């Protein structure tokens, strides 16, 4: 165990009994160090939420240990809760309160002084640009703002470990970026962050370490660069086709694994052929067969899909187009 691990999980197993018993967690090992954002990826039902619920003492593990800043979270769930703050997957109903009052009340319940909490609340509201809704009755706010409010309620007085279960759901793209920055800041300020998400492409930018769960087991754990290592030297070419294009594309030599949808085509290119492919693609644009093209490094999402199987792919975020030519 690393000396500065704020969360250290070893051999964690949980089986839900019932007619169709489910092995939700099966011998999971996981560490989150102070100052680190650890991404926990996995398809629906991979066991992510079960893992989170065991950390905060809502679910009791069958086997294994959870240590939270030195405290045995299985034997002392009350102690563990004092060190953890969690944003649950479901939104917290705050009807009757405004986002600001909800954030401040939770901050004070978490032990912050009135003044500190008020200042920190204002800071978070500004960071996430939700000021126009902060003092509105929560019945009138949208799902995305409710989600951001729930994040603020978790971050206002963060624990040593902050657990975020799908924090970006329902949040608009602009504020998602602000949220990712806020998550990064939480870790930079010293907390360990365990981030459960489907949003692989966006999470890639802020996580230090990734753990991929499948059917209750850790099937991969590494840095984003480490996980992507297997795809180094391979690029993806993506083309947006003009609607009127009738026949085939005539891919240049070296492009493999090509796919074609109605207005989109993609293929895999070895890095050394990148320049040739860009020349070819530009010629296609000039000829009026292609509207635009992009060459991107294989993303973590591609790695993820390969690991857990494409039939259980996460909801893909819009591909970021990074032209390298």
């Amino acid at each position: 165990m690393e000396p500065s691990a704020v969360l250290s999980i070893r051999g964690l197993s949980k089986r839900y009994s019932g007619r169709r018993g489910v092995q939700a967690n099966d011998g999971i090992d996981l560490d989150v160090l102070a100052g680190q954002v650890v991404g926990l990826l996995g398809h629906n039902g991979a066991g992510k939420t079960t893992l989170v619920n065991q950390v905060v003492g809502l679910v009791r593990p069958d086997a294994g240990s959870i240590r939270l800043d030195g405290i045995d979270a299985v034997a002392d769930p009350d102690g563990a809760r004092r060190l953890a703050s969690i944003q649950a997957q479901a939104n917290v109903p705050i009807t009757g309160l405004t986002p600001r009052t909800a954030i401040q009340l939770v901050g004070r319940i978490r032990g912050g002084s009135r003044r500190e909490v008020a200042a920190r609340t204002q800071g978070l509201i500004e960071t996430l640009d939700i000021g126009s809704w902060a003092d509105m009755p929560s019945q009138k706010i949208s799902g995305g703002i409710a989600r951001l409010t729930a994040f603020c309620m978790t971050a206002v007085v963060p624990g040593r470990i902050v657990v975020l279960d799908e924090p970006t759901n329902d949040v608009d793209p602009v504020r998602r970026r602000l949220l990712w920055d806020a998550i990064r800041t939480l870790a930079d300020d010293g907390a360990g962050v365990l981030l459960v998400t489907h949003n692989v492409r966006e999470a890639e930018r802020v996580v230090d370490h990734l753990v991929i769960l499948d059917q209750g087991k850790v099937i991969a754990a590494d840095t984003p660069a480490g996980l992507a290592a297997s795809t180094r030297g391979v690029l993806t070419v993506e083309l947006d086709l003009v609607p009127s294009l009738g026949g085939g594309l005539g891919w240049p030599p070296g492009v493999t694994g090509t796919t074609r949808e109605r207005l989109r085509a993609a293929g895999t290119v070895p890095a050394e052929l990148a320049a040739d492919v860009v020349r070819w693609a530009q010629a296609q644009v000039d000829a009026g067969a292609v509207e635009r093209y992009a060459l991107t490094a294989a993303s973590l999402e591609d790695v993820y899909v390969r690991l857990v199987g494409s039939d259980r792919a996460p909801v893909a975020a819009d591909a970021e187009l990074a032209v390298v030519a």
Partner: protein
Amino acid sequence: MTAVRQGLLLLQWQLRRGSTVMPLLVVVQIGMAVATVVGYGLLVGDPTPDVALYLATGAPTITLITVGLVMTPQMLGQAKTEGSLDWMRTLPVPRWTFLASDLLMWTLIALPGMVLGVVAGVLRFDVQLSIAPWLVAAALLVSLTSASVGYAMASVLPPMLAMLLTQVLVFVVLLFSPVSYPASRMPEWLQHAHEYLPIEPMAQVVRAGLANADFSVPGRSVVVLCVWCVASVGAALAALRRRA
């Protein structure tokens, strides 16, 4: 000290969250308390002074019991369904603090109805009360016990079943319990059952607290009530601590 502060903040959270329905709840409670007095009055016609005293001192107990046994499980069931209970359980608040703040809230909600029930009884039947100094403590004990029975019920049972049970319980409390009439009118087996249930002792402590000159509490009732109180608070606490 931290725990007390947290408890009060939680209470504030719950009351503010319920700010849209709470006033309505209190109004319904008051209406219920007054209706019990007036309604029973209609049932029995022109009551003799001792029957009237029985009715007037039974109504507040009915209010306290219905809040605890009916409203508490309904609200807790809703919190369970909408997910706020699980979220609140992740807060760094000791379970007993959490329970205490919730039970305190239910007591606060029940209080106005209880007081106005007494006032309505006095006005309607023109009875003479003699209030004991320990009435507040007795009311708190009754409120605490019925709210924790309701809490434990909603924690242990599936929400749907808990809801149904609350409906049955209202009926039992209103008609088949020696709260607004003496136990001697009930069949013997029911009298016997009520010796072990908390309802009759609840009625007795409130009644003796309100009309101390006319009624007293048997020691056995105090014991039965205390046993129920400790057991139900324990059960509610265990349910909150339970991990799946």
